[in-house]
């Protein structure tokens, strides 16, 4: 399977994703420069974390106008898989490829630490290797991960099972104290209504190797690979 990892000026988790996908998981990878329309026939596009354009103005606000984003919009429309991690998620919501917005953390500062997530929907290409309600540990590292969506749209997300990950404690309980950034409904990751675009604030590439202390993130990538292997014949 071939993964494309987009490089915006200021991306800083691009090579982390590349390392995990190619060295750890043995997949083909391609770095996609933001100024090019060419997605190089990749099967899944990763919008990595970092600070595209320094997060100046608003997170993701400038990156969304990159030429590569036009191609990604078409790619999504034709059913292609896209994962936005952290800044990638911010770019996806700014582009309105996912609903909502990401506000500054409630505490007002950057937060970098492992958090527990509850996997809310496992019927997706990104989470099929988890079991429903499973509690996993993946690090967050962001200043603006406070997910916001107007209440009317929130109920749509809930109804359509688009909420994929929610912040919780180690037992899967969700309460005020388990929400690191103030996200509405403790949302850590969502999927598009078309099921092929995942946006999440936590960094799965940071928990994909034993030497870094956790494997849980790797299973997201493994889910994608497994899904694709089962489906790509159908798609071609």
């Amino acid at each position, binding site marked *: 399977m071939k993964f494309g990892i987009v490089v915006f000026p200021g991306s*800083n988790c691009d090579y982390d994703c590349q*390392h995990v996908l190619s060295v750890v998981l043995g997949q083909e990878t391609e770095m996609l420069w933001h100024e090019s329309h060419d997605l190089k026939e990749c099967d899944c596009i990763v919008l990595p*974390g970092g*600070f595209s354009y*320094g*997060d100046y103005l608003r997170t993701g606000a400038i990156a969304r106008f990159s030429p590569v984003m036009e191609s990604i919009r078409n790619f999504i429309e034709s059913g292609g898989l896209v994962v936005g991690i952290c800044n990638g998620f911010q770019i996806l919501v700014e582009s309105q490829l996912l609903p909502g917005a990401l506000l500054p953390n409630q505490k007002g500062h950057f*937060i970098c630490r492992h958090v527990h997530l509850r996997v809310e929907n496992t019927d997706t290409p990104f989470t099929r290797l988890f079991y429903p309600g499973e509690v996993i540990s993946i690090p967050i590292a962001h200043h603006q991960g406070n997910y916001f969506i107007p209440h009317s749209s929130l109920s749509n997300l809930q109804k359509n099972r688009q909420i994929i990950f929610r912040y919780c404690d180690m037992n899967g309980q969700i309460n005020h104290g388990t929400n690191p950034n103030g996200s509405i409904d403790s949302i850590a990751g969502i999927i598009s209504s078309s099921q092929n675009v995942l946006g999440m604030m936590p960094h799965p590439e940071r928990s994909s190797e034993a*030497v870094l202390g956790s494997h849980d993130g790797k299973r997201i990538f493994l889910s994608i690979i497994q899904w694709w292997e089962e489906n790509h014949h159908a798609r071609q």
Partner: protein
Amino acid sequence: MQDNEQIQVARGLGLRDEEYQRILDILRRPPTPTELAMFSVEWSEHCGYPHSRRWFELFPRKGKFPVLVGEDAGGIVYQGQAVVFKMESHNHPSQVEPRQGAATGIGGIIRDIFGSGARPIACLDSLHFGPLDNARSHFIFKGVVDGIAFYGNCVGVPTVAGELYFHPSFQGNCLVNVMSIGIASQDRLAKSWAKGEGNLIIYAGNRTGRDGIGGCSILASQEFSGQDEKRPSVQIGDPFTEKCLIEATMEALSTGFLVGIKDMGAAGLTCSSSEMAAAGKSGIKIYLDRIPVREEAMEPWEIMMSESQERMLLCVKRGYEDSVLQIFHKWGLEAVVVGEVVDGDKITIELNGQIVADIPAQELTKPPVYTPPADKPDYLEKVNRYDWNDLPLPHNWNDALLQLMGSPNLCSRHSVFEQYDHMVQINTSILPGTGTVILRVKNLPWGIAVTTDCNPVFCYLDPYRGSQIAVAEAARNLAACGAQPAGITDCLNFGNPQKPDRYWQFIEAVKGISDACKFFNLPVVSGNVSFYNESPTGPIHPTPTIGMIGIIEDVQTAVNAAFKENDDLIVLLGE
């Protein structure tokens, strides 16, 4: 300009009369204002280390592993990989504007690392403030942490460890010492020289503004300047540009077209151009009108002294300049050819066809050396007479323990390092707060352990022993996680060196570090000195911060500090 008047200007720039005389001897004519400015910054404490340089000879430069001692950053070599590291202070800028001061400190040290050709893989911060119940100290502390987070997180270099210490002696003068570590294949390291007649000098990065032109306000206040309103301004960090500079520089280095490269840090263009020329034993000509400037009507000395951030100077093989320029442009950066390597040994600055400075580079980069008198401070006898038996024992040991654990100098640093992205680049194998931080090296079995240490109270009580304790503590920290101590960098924070008691503390500390390093077979690969850390209430406690790195052969065997299992034995080693 009259001779007399010029001596006044020279004094205003911090040059001594005998230094002015030496300038006359070197040039065999009166200096131009630009030349005077260039000498003043190049010979300043900040760039030239006139009060400290001679003592560095005491430092051992050899250790268990091969050592690199470079112009900007040194390092050690392990299995063909150069691990480059350096520490630097940004105390005074942080005291004035904590957020930007600390941010630009991180930016500066990272540029030193990638300027040497190594990719920055981690930063550390050693911070000292006055007690938190003082509102100003609290403000500075919060601003500094915020500034490090702002810059370090955005630039994509993890801030993985550090220290945080509160003591009244830092009330009017905080310490912000930042360290960065980089790694490169040994044969890919860059030179910081300019050589090869005809080769071109390229300026890349942010534009030059009137940032940090401290001493130059003196120049501006003289008749020959003109308008007012040239107030020196605080440097603002631009981590986004720095991130692009890192990537563009790494890419440019991989072309093989770069002859040399150097960052424009303290003293900006003056320092980078003259030191590149001197290191290459070449002449350099710079055309000032080609330098990208941010403000109109900048005077030549302003351009030469500006400390605007995120700028690099490159020497590129003639004929290949377009490929190099293109890389920087691709990353959205400004990059222009501003000069060339010329025959001779002079640094020549031209503005619109007129020469505004013409100085032998070797002389400019050879600042005077001073050894002022040193005297053992009076306080030492008194403080060391203290009878420990006078100390009352606590009534309730549990309460005492809780109080200790909750005290600002001992409590958890979680709230600080949680604000730093300490995981980006996915190398942080042992995380901060769980033991000494260890970075794995991707695709290789070994890892790097890092720490900074110094206890200023010990150094106040005995600078020699205190410094040895700092080295020993750092070595213990590394050993405790399974790493071999491999080398140190230092940041020597002291008061005014012209006061004998402060200077004595400094010398003792250098001796202490040297002796401890020899004992542990550790090289001092790089370092930095910050003098004049004083406030109206007196000098800071002497603080020779030690940054140490160690090598762990098999990163899988690294251990963190946590107790692991019920029934595991707990053993106390040592007396």
